[in-house]
Structure formats: C-alpha cells, structure tokens
C-alpha cells in the first residue's frame, strides 16, 4: 500500500562520509523518523539515529531534513512531493559521532556553566507564593525540550566554530531570561552574566532560532530581545557607558573563556592571560584549541584497571596460578612508567582562589 520514495542519508563518522541513496517504502501518514526506522529494520540495521518519545516531546531526533533543522518525528512525509528526493543529514554545528548522531555535549557544557536557580533564603519549601501572571513568561521558556535545533541553526556557531567558547546559544539565553524573569530567583546578576559570559552580544537577532523551534517558543522576541533590553538598562545607559569607557577601560572583559570543549574541563588558566586570541597563528585547529586551553589539570583521567584478584579477592601471589612471573603491578596492568605526559594530573590547592 505504500509508495517507494527516494532518500539520501548521510552515512559516516568523524573520518568522513557521504550521502547514500536509499529507496524505501513509505506509507500514508508516516513521518521521516518512521522511514528511518524502516531502514534500520531492513536495509541498514546499523544506521545510527537518536530517538525516544516519537511524539515531539523529548527532542532527541534532531536532524537536518532537506537542509532545514527539524525533528524527525514531527516532519510528515506528506509535506514532500511524491517524486522528491529527501536528504537527511546530521546536525552540522556539532561534531558527528556516526551517521545522524552528533556529539551535543557543547550544549550540556553551556548548561553547566549557566548559574542555577538561586532559591530565596527566607522561604521554606511550601511557602513559595507566585502569581500566575508572574510565572507565565518563564513557563514559556520551560517548554523547551532541548532538541538543540536553535543551537544548531544559529549562525554564530554554525558558521564560526571559533565562537563556541564565548557564545552559549539561544537555548541558554532563554534559560538566563527564564531565571531573570523568575519571580523568586534570588540572583540579580543574570543580565551581566548573559552579556559577559554567555556572549549575548554575538546575537544579531536574525531569528533563525525562533524559526526552527518545534515548541514555538518566541526565543528572540520574548527571550533574547528582552534580555538585550535588560542589559541596556544596566550597561548601556549612555552616561554609565561613557564613564566605564573612560575610567575603567579594558577592565570589563568582553568575553571570558570558561570551560573548553571537553566535559570535565574547568576554567582554563590561559583565560586570564589573554592567550586565547589566536595563539601563534597556527593553522592546526586542534593545536590551536589546545594552546588556547592550556593544559587542563583537572580533567578526569580514568582509573587504571585494578590489579587482577582471584576468587577470594586477593592478589594471586603464587606464580603457579598466575600468568606471569612475580606479582601484578599494584597500579594496574595498563599503567606503564614513565607515565605519558597527558596522563599526569594535578590540582593546585589554590586553584579556586586564583579562579575567583
């Protein structure tokens, strides 16, 4: 009962890949994600694709369909012409893992840097009183399903990877807006944070985030622009601004580099030195990033394989039952000395003071 449709799906990983053609049966009422599932069950069992709820509520199946960032589960096949070839590619802005799956950890890092809700100190649980009209604006932003389509479409990072450090993206602007508009949030520095740490100024309000939002959150009109206006309240009052230009020149950093690309990375020591601006003019992107970040002394190094123990939980110390002469290394079998430099780790006791 279905019809045959042409698909081009990007297959590959970080080392490369290309668009591959598939002819798939498509039935009435199906969405793109259904077709991908059919492919998995037939031609391409190892086609990698994220999905969860299949009802537009979890935001997992973000992909680019005919070049537009969309949710696979919300894109009906009936929106395409019968003879149209449908091209499905992974999100462009994030590193690819395999096929349609990308590494979206950038977003989780930015989420982690955004200061959390600060509960009012004088209210116990159950004593919170808020009016509906006061919570409605924040509630709109809390509809966000974190599909990261807005992050993906935003040209600030999509076309300029180098902005990723200084720019948090629309998702986290509305997070900042949500907290700034929260009737009981105790922090007052959300606006400054949005401007200096999140890179609100990078946004040139071209509104693609709003265009792709599957929850129809008015990201730009209700989130970003109000935040920009709130920043103006504090920072661009002409007199205050002039004063800061004249008297405190250079003391307000435009951007400050917080965590780098790796989960677990912490504030880089290079940030304060200004080394982060195009170190050495090297063209090797990776070396450059590394130079920007310096050595991250707080990254987590996995624990070495523990020494093998026998059934009683003891080190097998007799050569008879062991597979080599003498005892196993107490550091674990996979640790060799000298340790390679990238495995060294060190936390300076005064790290925290230096940071703040």
């Amino acid at each position, binding site marked *: 009962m279905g019809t045959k449709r042409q698909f081009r799906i990007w297959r590959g990983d970080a080392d490369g890949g290309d668009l591959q053609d598939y002819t798939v049966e498509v039935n009435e009422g199906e969405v793109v994600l259904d077709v991908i599932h059919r492919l998995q069950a037939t031609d391409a069992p190892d086609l990698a694709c994220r999905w969860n709820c299949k009802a537009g509520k979890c935001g997992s199946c973000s992909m680019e369909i005919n070049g537009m960032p969309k949710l696979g589960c919300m894109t009906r096949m009936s929106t395409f012409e019968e003879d149209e070839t449908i091209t499905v*590619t992974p999100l462009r802005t994030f590193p690819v893992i395999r096929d349609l799956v990308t590494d979206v950890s950038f977003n989780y890092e930015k989420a982690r840097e955004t200061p959390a809700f600060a509960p009012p100190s004088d209210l116990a649980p159950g004593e919170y009183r808020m*009016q509906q009209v*006061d919570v409605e604006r924040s509630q709109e932003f809390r509809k966000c399903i974190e599909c990261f389509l807005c992050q993906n479409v935003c040209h600030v990072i999509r076309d300029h990877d180098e902005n990723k450090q200084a720019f948090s993206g629309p998702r986290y602007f509305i997070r900042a807006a949500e907290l700034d508009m929260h009737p009981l949030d105790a922090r007052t520095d959300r606006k400054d944070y949005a401007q200096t740490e999140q890179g609100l100024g990078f946004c040139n309000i*071209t509104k693609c985030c709003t265009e792709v939002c599957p929850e129809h959150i008015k990201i730009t009109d209700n989130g970003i622009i*109000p935040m920009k206006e709130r920043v*103006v309240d504090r920072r661009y009052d002409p007199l205050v601004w002039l004063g800061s230009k004249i008297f405190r020149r250079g003391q307000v950093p435009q951007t400050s580099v917080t965590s780098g690309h790796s989960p677990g990375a912490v504030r880089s020591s290079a940030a304060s030195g200004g080394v982060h601006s195009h170190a050495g003019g090297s063209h090797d992107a990776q070396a450059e990033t590394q130079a920007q970040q310096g050595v991250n002394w707080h990254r*987590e190094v996995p624990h070495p394989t523990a020494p093998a123990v026998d059934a009683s939980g003891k080190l097998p110390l007799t050569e008879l039952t062991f597979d080599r002469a003498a005892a196993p290394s107490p550091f674990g079998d996979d640790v060799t000395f000298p340790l390679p430099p990238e495995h060294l780790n060190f936390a300076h006791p005064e790290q925290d003071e230096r940071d703040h």
Partner: protein
Amino acid sequence: MTSSATKPQGVRARAAIAAKTLRTDRWWFAPLITVIGLSAWVAYATVRVFMHKWYWVEDYHYLTPFYSPCVTDRCLPEASHFGQYLPGWWIIPDAAFTLPFLLLFRLTCYYYRKAYYRSFWLSPPACAVPDAHASYGGETRFPLIVQNSHRYFFYFAAIISLINTWDAIAAFRSPEGFGFGLGNLILLGNVVMLWAYTISCHSCRHIIGGRLKHFSKHPVRYRAWGYVSWLNVRHMQLAWITLGTLALTDFYVMSVSAGWISDLRFIN
C-alpha cells in the same frame, strides 16, 4: 583509552557534508525581496529629501512627513511650525532635526536589523545557509554595539510621532477655515500607522512593562504591556506598512503640491 571524560581534546570533526546548504526551497527569495524593497524606498526617500520642493500644500496645510518639521531657512515660513534654525544648504535636509533620528530609529530597530543583516550583510542570508563572512563578532564590538542604543532613538521617535500627529491635525484646514479631504485621510492613516509601529517597538515593550519582575504588582503596566505585546508581534508588518504609508503620503502631498492632481475634498 577513550572515555567520555578523556575524549581527545580539541575539535572533533563535523560531518563532512559537501553542499553548503541542502535547502531545496526558495530560501533566497525573502532576502532578495527585502533588498529590492528597502533599496527602492531609500532611493525614493533620498531623492525626495534633497528635492527641497513640493512638500507643502498651502491651501490645505498638508506637510509631508519627510519635511516635518521644516527647520532650515529655505523652508516656506508657513510650513515651519516650529521655527527655523539651520542654514538652507542643499546638503542639509529641511527636516534635519528629525530625519537622522528616524533613520537611526529604524536602523537600530530589532526587525530591520534582522532584515538587513540577512539580506544586505548575508549574515546569514537564510536559516541553515552559510554566513557570507569568514569571521563574526556580532554586536559585541564597535560599531554594532551601538545597536543597543535603540531605546534612546525610540524616545526621539515618539516625540517625532507627536509632531507628525500635530501636522495631521493642523491639516484639517482649507482657505475657508475647517476643511477635510482625501489628503487628510492619508495623513491620518500614516500617523496612526507610525504610532502603531513606534509603540510596537521592542524597546517600548520593555519600558512599558517588560522590565518588571512582578507583573502582579503593577496591574496597569501589565495591561499596557499586553497591548504593546499584541502590537509587537506585528512589528515586522508595521515596519513595512509604515514604509509604504510614508512614501504614499509623501507622494500624495508632492502630487497635490506640484499640481499634478487636485485633492479630493469632502468638506470645503
């Protein structure tokens, strides 16, 4: 030894997709039409501003918004409601106190910013279509950081809208005293639209109520914010409509003033 904690540091590769964009729809249409529309309007406005004539209809007191208020000493005295302060050099627009602010109000307007960043600056031309520039700093530095001054231009624009309102009211005239013609309708319509555009401004929305943390404590401002928000959703439409009404009003006044057509009069 890879783990989520020790992924190779630095940049991991994005998917190697050769095509710059895979969009199949006519994404280039919107920026194209914006370029054409804005260019045409700017060309018309420039010509008109430096024409220095056909801006006043003596019989009915019609003054085109492009010359309001007329403040150079080359202005017709009866058209200078608010006095003459500037020398009448060719290069100085006769409405030199207002036009620059109106221009800046629109230039820093959140909608126009979107429109020209997309269409003229191609940054980006459309969603998921690559930016035409190699590097990008957005509005973090001079000069674009000045876009943040939008609200101050809004204050000026509000004052200018008052002046335009005065012009529209003062135009209910005829040689016999009170008068009312098609020109009045056009002037009035233009002023109403100008107000709608000015009030629907994002900065206005912020000042009226958006900046409040607790709407419940300011019921009147909350209401006002609701109305402004309703208009604000239509800010783009109003931006284009007012370009149209401005040009139309000016053209009508020019035509009557030049004697190409005569005003259709309803009363006197």
